[in-house]
């Protein structure tokens, strides 16, 4: 059954660290990584490189960075919320930015959570643990699409 996590992250270091943090917390879900906003949209809507993907399988949660090549995180979020298929998908913004404006915009566009990546890895692991526990275990999501 394997619930999928979609990680949208352009920094390979952060990708490695996130994978490790997930593993450390025994979160064994399949991890799909999109390296820019365009790739993330392709995956979600089955376009481009993901042409023909089975769209009935949607990620349990999307971990979204804001500063991304091609299409930035807020734009990805806006398009997801504009589309019926992804409208209700839980999105956690996971970013380095501490700007108040990003936080406000993020929630404004319909993000479910906003987590700032701490420099301290231990703190990062703790943050991932909490979000995994909540979004993958506790949270109930309505069935989207069909």
């Amino acid at each position, binding site marked *: 059954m394997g619930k999928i996590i979609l990680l949208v992250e352009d*920094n390979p*270091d*952060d990708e*490695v*660290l996130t994978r*490790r943090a997930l593993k450390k917390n025994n979160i064994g879900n399949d991890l799909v990584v999109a390296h820019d906003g365009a790739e993330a949209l392709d995956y979600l809507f089955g376009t481009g490189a993901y042409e023909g993907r089975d769209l009935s399988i949607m990620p349990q949660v999307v971990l979204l960075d*804001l*500063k991304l090549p091609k299409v930035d995180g807020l734009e990805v979020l806006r398009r997801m919320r504009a589309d019926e298929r992804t409208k209700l998908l839980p999105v956690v913004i996971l*970013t*380095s*930015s*501490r*700007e108040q404006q990003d936080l406000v915009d993020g929630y404004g566009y319909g993000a479910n959570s906003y987590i700032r*990546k*701490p*420099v*301290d*890895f*231990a703190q*990062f692991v703790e943050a991932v643990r909490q979000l995994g526990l909540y979004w993958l275990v506790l949270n109930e999501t309505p069935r989207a699409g069909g």
Partner: protein
Amino acid sequence: MRRARRVFGHLRRAAVAYAVLLVALMLTILAYYYVRQNVEASVRDQFDETVRAAQDAIDRQMNSYVEAMLGSRGLFYASNSVEEGEWDDYASGIDLQERYEGMQILGYAERVDPADKDDVEEQLAESLRDEGLGDRSGLHPEGERPEYFPLTFVEPLDEVNGSLLGYDAYSDPAYRAVMDRARDTGQAQATGKVYVLTEAPGGSRADLALEPGLVVYLPVYRRGRSVDDVDQRQRALEGYVVAYLEAEGLLRGTLESFDSSIDFEIYDGEDLAPNSLLYDDDGVLRAGESQEPAGFFGTIGMFADSLAGGSGGSKLSDLRQIDLAGREYDLYFEALPGASGEGGSRLLPLFVLLSGLVVSLLLFGTTFMLVRSRLRAEKAGRDLEDANHELESTNRELEAFSYSVSHDLRAPLRSIDGFSQILVEDYADEIDDEGKDYLGRVRAGSQRMGRLIDDILGLSRVTRGNMERKRLDLGALAEEVAEELREARPEREDERKVEFSAQKGLEVWGDPKLLRVALVNLIGNAWKFTEKSPEAYIEFGLSEKLSYKGRVPVYYVRDNGAGFDMAYAGKLFGAFQRLHGEDEFEGTGIGLATVQRVVHRHGGRIWAEGEVDRGATFYFTLRPGLRLDPTASQKEGTTK
């Protein structure tokens, strides 16, 4: 084309100034014409008055001469025959030569029929001889005529006048017409202009001179005969009293008393030509002449005169008819230019014009300056706006820059920290304790770097961005901040519990976000530096001592923590300045710099007092105001 546009632009901008100039000039010209008209009218009135008076005086003078003639006629009506001696007596009786200066001759022309001609001639020749005036036949000019009117009496009888004794003027048609008219009307009648033989004035080489003048004839009728109509008069005529009047003598005395700035000229008849001139006051003929400017100075004079109201085109003059013993003479008056006695009032219009021009120009200058300074102010305003726009765009760039810093500078730190941690965890067997210690330092360094970045961003955030002032309770805000700190540091709830008190109801006018940042730093510092105090105590409030009447309110945050040495108080508010080692109290040294910026942005000041291990007090104000307590500022100054 471009030049024209520039001129047009200039006119448009300075329109107000030019309008003021135009109005002022118009008012000046109106005032000039008004004053000029008044002055002209008053000059004209005075002139008219003089003219009338002069005319009356001439009338009176002429009448008095005719009276003298009438008196002499009385002689003939008083006796049957008048002897030459009696005529002489009369003349000296009326003081002829003294009182009638202009009467060259007072004589009598007797009517002589051709039948009596020879007797009369003989008589005349005799009296000529008696008077020693030569030997010649009496009646002249010679010739046969139906009637003769030889001058039989002549007073004063001197050498000059003696030549006229026996002269028959009736032989001259011009005289004859006048004499006939006198005979027919019974009135004294004057000839037109004639030349009268006189003694040459003193200094002249000639003995005799011909001067302009006129001759007046007064008819003498036979005693007792009625003279009711022309026919009776013609038959009753006995002769004429004849007066040769020399114009100069007749009028000089009369007109001398009048304004010398007016010239009188008397002409025979309507022809104002030099050869009909009878009398001229100043020897310059003016009637009917247009004045020729006399050289350069004359031109200037005329120009000034025309401005001053003399108006060259319409010089002040008058032409009157005057009756001199039944003959019409033309009397011409003219005001002489310049030499007027009332030059002051004649110059008044010019003065009004000039001072009006000066005032107009001054007004124009003043208005122009005002307009120009307003335009400059407007331009300065526009420049300021431009500068503001520039500043705004600079701020936006800074915003983008710090966003970038916040996001991109932290990512590598995360890698450094994260992989150091992974090394320690995954390769614990291969790394000895010393290596682990080093990796720990790498991690500590990167985390510290992360905090530094955050604090620098915070510092820049309080510097840029708009201020949004609101009314808020600073005490309540302090309480809120303390509550958050308490929650963030639950470990200090039991041991080394912090006693916090804040004075409520301290209303200020400030930006809530910025003030929160300031209080978070100030109270956070107090929290941090009381960590080692057994009975930590933090207090926020309004300093009664420093904010008495008339001063701006001074707020303070006081603690009983580690304190500081006043010698280093000057370093407190500099960015990255720390008074404690990292091992003692953690921190980046940016907090107080941030607080200072917030205070400065509100127009206030901040200073501190402290003592090592006795705590510290930070004072601040939130608006510009009167000088603070001098001791406080002194302390602030000496700590530098």
